[in-house]
């Protein structure tokens, strides 16, 4: 069990209360190992984003347990916003539906900043960022601003940003939603390869069946519950 990156146990999230109560997550269970690339497939509104937000320590679950690298989040109640943010900063990488690159930073700077946030010196951060951009075939865009590159390129830059600081978990929320099938597949393939190479656990959530080829595991999600693979 030592190489377990994430474990969810009976995770439940209820938004609102009374009349307006929405059960976004009913009973989610999942285990992810180091270097394992999993997909969560489910229709819109099934609770995928909510699950990622719970995992990413952005939303506090109503009930259930989250373990990250064996440590239970929220367990002792002493978890502060600051601690959660440090956990995200050091252990996690995020990839969004819209690339969410910072528009006033160049492609390179967008990647460098994630590395600098964990204390990497500028030079080293730049070298690491360039390596990744190179692998992802967007090195020639390093000096461009996000607005001037294509959606597929932007998503590859986002992958670099999510990986550059050496996280153990990458959470990707519909990373291909803004791309056509071919580009989407390419992005997912690159993500999988890099994660494998670096031993990073990846959870990709998507509603698009075409994107879930070649994952180690594919979970299905419906009405807030994770069904069997």
């Amino acid at each position, binding site marked *: 069990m030592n190489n377990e990156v994430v474990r969810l146990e009976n995770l439940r999230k209820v938004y609102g209360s009374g009349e307006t109560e929405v059960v976004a997550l009913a009973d989610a269970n999942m285990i992810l190992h180091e270097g394992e690339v999993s997909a969560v497939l489910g229709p819109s509104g099934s609770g995928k*984003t909510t699950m*990622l*937000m719970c995992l*990413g320590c*952005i*939303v506090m679950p109503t009930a259930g347990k989250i373990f990250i690298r064996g440590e239970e989040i929220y367990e002792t109640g002493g978890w502060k916003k*600051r601690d959660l*943010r*440090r*956990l*995200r*900063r*050091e252990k*996690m*990488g*995020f990839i*969004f*539906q*819209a690339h*969410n690159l*910072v*528009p*006033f*930073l160049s492609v390179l*700077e967008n990647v*460098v*900043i*994630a590395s*600098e*946030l964990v204390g990497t010196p500028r030079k080293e951060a730049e070298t690491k960022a360039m390596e990744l951009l190179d692998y992802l075939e967007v090195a020639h865009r390093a000096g461009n*601003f996000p607005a001037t590159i294509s959606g597929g390129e932007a998503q590859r830059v986002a992958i670099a*940003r999510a990986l550059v600081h050496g996280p153990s978990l990458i959470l990707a*929320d519909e990373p291909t*939603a803004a791309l056509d099938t071919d580009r989407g597949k390419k992005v997912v393939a690159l993500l999988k390869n890099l994660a494998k190479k670096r031993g990073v656990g990846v959870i990709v959530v998507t509603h698009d069946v075409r994107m879930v080829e070649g994952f180690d595991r594919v979970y299905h999600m419906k009405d807030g519950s994770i069904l069997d693979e």
Partner: protein
Amino acid sequence: MIDLAVKDISHSPRRFIFTCLGIGMLLMVVMAMGGIYRGFVDDATLIVKNTGADIWVVQKDTNGPFAEESRIPEDLKHTLGVLPGVSDTGALSFQTIQINWKGKPNRLFIIGYDPNLRFGGPSEIIAGRPILRRHYDMVANFKSGLRLGDKLTLGQDTYTVVGLTGNVVSPSGDPVVYMTLADAQKVQFQKNNEAIRNDRERLKEELSGLLPQGAGEGKIADALSNDTHIVNAVVLKVSKGYPVSKIAAAVERWKHYRAFTVPEQETILTMGLVAKAKMQLGLFRIILLIVSMAIINLVIYTQTMDKMREIATLKLIGAPDWTIVRLIVEQSLLLGFFAYWIGYAIINLTYKYFPRRVVLVPFDLKALFVIVMLICVIASFTGVRSALKVDPAHALGG
């Protein structure tokens, strides 16, 4: 760390630049008002400094010629001259006149002095010559609108501008024109013919009650009321080594006049004439600074709201609050910093052309800089607060 504040501004600098220019101009006005106030103070005390006297003797129970009417006999200068420690004495007259000059009203401040004395007159002649003749010569402030050779008719006489002096102004800012004391007295009393006639009648009436019948009260009244040997102040110079304040006190005891030392005279001038201006200008400056703060606040807030998604993203990838606070506060400080230097540049290029003297005091400018920086920090609060409140989940919204 990448400097997010600078990156953001340099990526889309338009709003920032325009705000800098706007705030810069407001700050320029703030600096100008400070400079005008300092100019008021300088102007108010300029004549006192320029005269070079150590003691001002004025009418008893008055605050002197710059505050109210002060009339004392001219020959007091001879009487006071015998006091030990008094090295020089002179009599001065002061009068504000308004003339019509080249179709425009022009206020001038006439100082009558004795050209034979080494003090009381213009401290420098920048063009032409000093007053040499007993009559009809004038030396004018070069900013008075009068030029060398200009002829000016006051009363029944015509005076010629023979020299120009520096920017000497009255305590209320009117350019100074120097004349001989005799000329100045003539101008002063010719303008008051009516008043003199009234004085004479009144004197005659009073004298007829006091003097025996047929003592010639008419003649005496004439003599008294035609006496133009009245001045507004007698000024003394004190020899080295004599205590000025002791001599001033001695004059007051001995002659029943009021005697001011230079600091006392300056205090009266700055308190009386400048105190209100100080309050008014101070109030305007505060209002302008508050307006600046409101604008900076609004711009920084808008700037921050426009970046909410990026801020949420930064939080989501784990950026500490400090990174976000710094981004916003730094932009606010940069705004204030550039605005300050824009204002500084403008005022330095323009202050010479202000109608009133603008005196830029380094201390005032430094203090303003500190205030502007503080204002920027305060102005960024609303932006910082909403940025800190935004939920990282906001970044995930499609």
